[in-house]
């Protein structure tokens, strides 16, 4: 018998492969469109139901507002400004506080998590105090911060920090402890100093832990800043909500919350971008790979 070594059909094949790959890409695009479509559908159904319930007084728009009322409110804020000044200024103020608080809290949480995760003695001694600190009601802490730091930006930032810190800390800490011991050993043997182990093994392997906590904690930072503004402020979305609440203006309350949600989504989008960049080394689940 003759061994038929694979003949050079490559040229003929090439077209079929290209076609198959184009098909795969088309599938991806279609799926993306489906996702967007479904998201929108849910949004529309939700808003529609809300509006209908409000119109037919199944839920009382005095308490729960209605999409059209919210939209009117947002529009009037955009065109006429709020009682505290232009809308963008409120957004800017809150965003600034949130962002500062988020960065400080996240960096603090990551650093503390790594230090305690790497040092068992420190962890044993201090983690109990971190647990204690985490059980302090943030609203009470809010007034303590206002007393200690004044009514300015500092107290809101501090409140955002304490919202963010614990979540990030808990994950960074656990992420560090989960780092593969063989990998750490390998790095050590390859000559890594403790610092290098931290930067080249611990942080990359804790990265998905840290990122998971960042996703949830930006929302928390926002909540912290808003609560801070709630307790006393000159500017900001929290004050907007508090004023609207005081005036029984449900539209205002919900409009402000929607603006906050949009802010959170924008930042979420950025974090996701960052995440995709950082973890591009990650294997795709089986069946999602190949062309």
């Amino acid at each position: 018998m003759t061994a038929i070594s694979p003949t050079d059909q490559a040229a003929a094949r090439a077209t079929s492969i290209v076609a198959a790959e184009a098909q795969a890409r088309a599938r991806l695009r279609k799926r993306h469109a489906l996702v967007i479509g479904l998201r929108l559908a849910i949004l529309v159904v939700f808003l529609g139901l809300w509006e209908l319930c409000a119109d037919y007084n199944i839920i009382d728009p005095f308490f729960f507002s209605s999409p059209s009322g919210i939209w009117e409110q947002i529009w009037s804020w955009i065109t006429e400004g709020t009682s505290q000044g232009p809308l963008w200024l409120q957004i800017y103020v809150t965003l600034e506080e949130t962002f500062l608080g988020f960065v400080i809290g996240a960096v603090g949480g990551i650093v503390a998590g790594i230090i305690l995760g790497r040092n068992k003695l420190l962890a044993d001694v201090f983690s109990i105090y971190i647990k204690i600190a985490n059980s302090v009601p943030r609203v009470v802490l809010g007034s303590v911060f206002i007393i200690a730091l004044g009514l300015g930006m500092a107290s809101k930032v501090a409140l955002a920090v304490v919202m963010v810190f614990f979540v990030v800390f808990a994950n960074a800490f656990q992420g560090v402890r989960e780092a593969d011991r063989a990998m750490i050993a390998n790095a050590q043997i390859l000559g890594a100093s403790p610092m290098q182990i931290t930067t080249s093994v611990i942080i990359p392997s804790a990265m998905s832990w840290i990122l998971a906590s960042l996703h949830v904690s930006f929302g928390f930072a926002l909540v912290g800043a808003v609560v801070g503004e709630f307790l006393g402020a000159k500017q900001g979305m929290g004050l907007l909500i508090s004023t609207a609440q005081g005036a029984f203006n449900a539209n205002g309350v919900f409009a402000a919350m929607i603006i906050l949600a949009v802010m959170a989504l924008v930042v979420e989008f950025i974090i996701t971008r960052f995440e995709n960049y950082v973890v591009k080394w990650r294997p795709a689940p089986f069946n999602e790979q190949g062309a």
Partner: protein
Amino acid sequence: MQLQTMAAEKLSPAAPPADAAIAIDDVTLRFVTPDGHMMTAIRDFTMTVARGEFACVVGPTGCGKSTTLNLVTGLLRPTTGNVRVMGNPVTDISRDIGFVFQADALFPWRSVIDNVAAGPLFRGTPKKEAYDKARDWIGRVGLSRFEKHYPHQLSGGMRKRAALAQTFINQPKILLMDEPFSALDMQTRTAMQDELLGLWSGLKSSVVFVTHDLEEAVALADKVYVLTAGPGTVKSVYRIDLPRPRVMADIRYDPKFIEIAKVIWSDLREEVQLGQSRGLQTGH
């Protein structure tokens, strides 16, 4: 290259018949590489394993052997071409298959016995029966004293044996094994080979067995596939006509065996050298 020996008959890879246990038909699979290009892992790959047949696959490292097995399990999808198992196209990960992974895939949170009993339990076997069976298989792979150990408390070879027991206990009709014995010492390996042949002949399973040990391949197989250096495709297929049952401890000294091994070895070496000249630069 044409040859024909009494024992190793070189076959031409033909389009697979419909009733084959495993039929890989003219498959190409491409991966996206880190720089965004496409890399062909296997191309124009055709392979057939008849029911009850024992096929071994040898080839230089990185030529696509594991990829081929993954195609059969449904873990990977071909870019073009198609894969059939027992006549049906592979659409999802199949439960009729036993697969010994190249790397460790034991469940670290389960002790050895829980790992081995996993298959029967998943398939609805009553608990007691599953554990009895598991205990039996753990004995066969020589881990009785380590029943309660967790995978991280085992040595590399012990983990591999646990994985073998985990797969064998399901008595799969189709058995895929990716270098299952490479972490074992010669003696244990021989025992495991005997165990495998016993299971195979008892169940009339179809087996695809990937190995780097050509002698092992010849000793076990009905058919040996030699792959080319990556992008892998089938270079040649040999039918091994050594009589069965074969006893692993003795077969290596059979002159027919030695002859066959030599023939395939020269074929394979050619390929490996090609792969090396393409990939390996000489070091010093």
